[in-house]
């Protein structure tokens, strides 16, 4: 199978999926990414089915190109949303936070291309066995809820373990990252953080400015102690979380601190007390651009990098060689 067959069949120009970001990836962002040649994704997050339906219908008005829905499997509305994507004729579904096993049959019957996000080799193999069309191997460099392994280590291990296409996610923010993902065996990439600052992204302006100002070391993970690690940019909220953690607060107390925190940052613009979820690559994101500018730029950079490769990896003219 040609490397790009998978994306070719989906009818897109670039092998790119936009990461599903709860409270952020709405019809405005998703349709702009699809129009620009990638696969835009609406994030269902924990939103009720009516909201997701409204966003699907808005996106259909905004683009005739394919877009998908990212379904968070821990949502209390997951059953209804799983049926909604069938009823609305959605063609691409990505899933997060577990195994979509029980919905796979129904989605396949509706001709949906199913791409679960996986953080381990075993889950990738299980998803392949259950009928997933591809998997997104997401390393812990990604923003939001994350697994333990890095993209650099996870991606080639999953590529070796399954025969379906593997899409790389986590830590990819420019053409160099895309080129690296292809070197590790990926068939495509998913980017989230870079699109946070897209002009068409409706996240609060304070959130965008916080991403643009972020340094590498601002990226931290909270909640390792609760078993639900989340990558965010550090602020008052993360310091409060760490204080509570050190003081031996209960899991319930710690989780309560996170409740509603993403909405507070993404919608209300409270980037001090809200949860500013972003990937480690935030430090690399420097300006607000349109989705089309972002996508054209990163793929021309990636192609340039990959096409320039003709390295034999031997250091030339080293005096040490002459002694041979």
């Amino acid at each position: 199978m040609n490397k790009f067959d998978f994306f070719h069949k989906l009818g897109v120009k670039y092998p790119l999926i936009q990461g599903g970001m709860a409270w952020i990836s709405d019809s405005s962002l998703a349709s702009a990414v699809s129009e620009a040649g990638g696969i835009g994704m609406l994030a269902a997050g924990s939103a009720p089915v009516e909201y997701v339906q409204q966003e699907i219908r808005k996106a259909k008005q905004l683009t005739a190109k394919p877009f998908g829905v990212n379904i968070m499997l821990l949502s209390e509305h997951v059953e209804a949303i799983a049926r909604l994507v069938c009823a609305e004729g959605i063609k691409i579904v990505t899933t997060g936070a577990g195994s979509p096993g029980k919905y796979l049959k129904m989605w396949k019957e509706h001709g949906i291309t199913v791409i679960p996000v996986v953080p381990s080799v075993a889950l990738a193999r299980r998803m392949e066995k259950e009928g997933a069309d591809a998997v997104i191997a997401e390393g812990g460099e990604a923003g939001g809820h994350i697994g333990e392994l890095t993209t650099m280590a996870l991606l080639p291990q999953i590529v070796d373990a399954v025969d379906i296409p593997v899409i790389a996610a986590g830590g990819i923010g420019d053409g160099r990252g895309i080129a690296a993902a292809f070197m590790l065996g990926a068939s495509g990439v998913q980017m989230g953080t870079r699109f946070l600052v897209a002009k068409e992204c409706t996240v609060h302006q304070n959130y965008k400015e916080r991403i643009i100002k972020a340094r590498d070391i601002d990226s931290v993970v909270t909640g390792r102690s609760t078993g639900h690690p989340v990558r965010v940019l550090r602020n008052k909220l993360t310091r409060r979380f760490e204080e509570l953690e050190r003081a031996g607060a209960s899991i319930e107390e710690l989780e309560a601190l996170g409740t509603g925190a993403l909405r507070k940052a993404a919608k209300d613009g409270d980037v001090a007390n809200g949860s500013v979820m972003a990937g480690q690559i935030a430090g690399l994101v420097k300006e607000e651009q349109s989705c089309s500018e972002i996508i054209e730029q990163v793929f021309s950079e990636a192609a340039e990098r990959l096409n320039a490769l003709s390295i034999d990896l031997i250091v030339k003219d080293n005096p040490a060689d002459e002694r041979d």
Partner: protein
Amino acid sequence: MSFSNISQIIARHIGVEAGEIKPTSRFKEDLQIDSLDIFEIVMDLEEQYDLEIPTEDLEDLRTVGDLVKYIDSVKD
């Protein structure tokens, strides 16, 4: 399948002595087994004993005893 077979498989995956695992041991609270470990263990069981264990059936299994009972029921 006996409890001792299953406890040995679990023990190998999480790096404890099989003797430390009891039928009443809870995956999450007592053995610190998370959802990713569960998939590893289940796939191992499927391969070794030629079984199909649907993902949705895993949700109700809280203890090692639950898993043993479940495996016995699908084997028949």
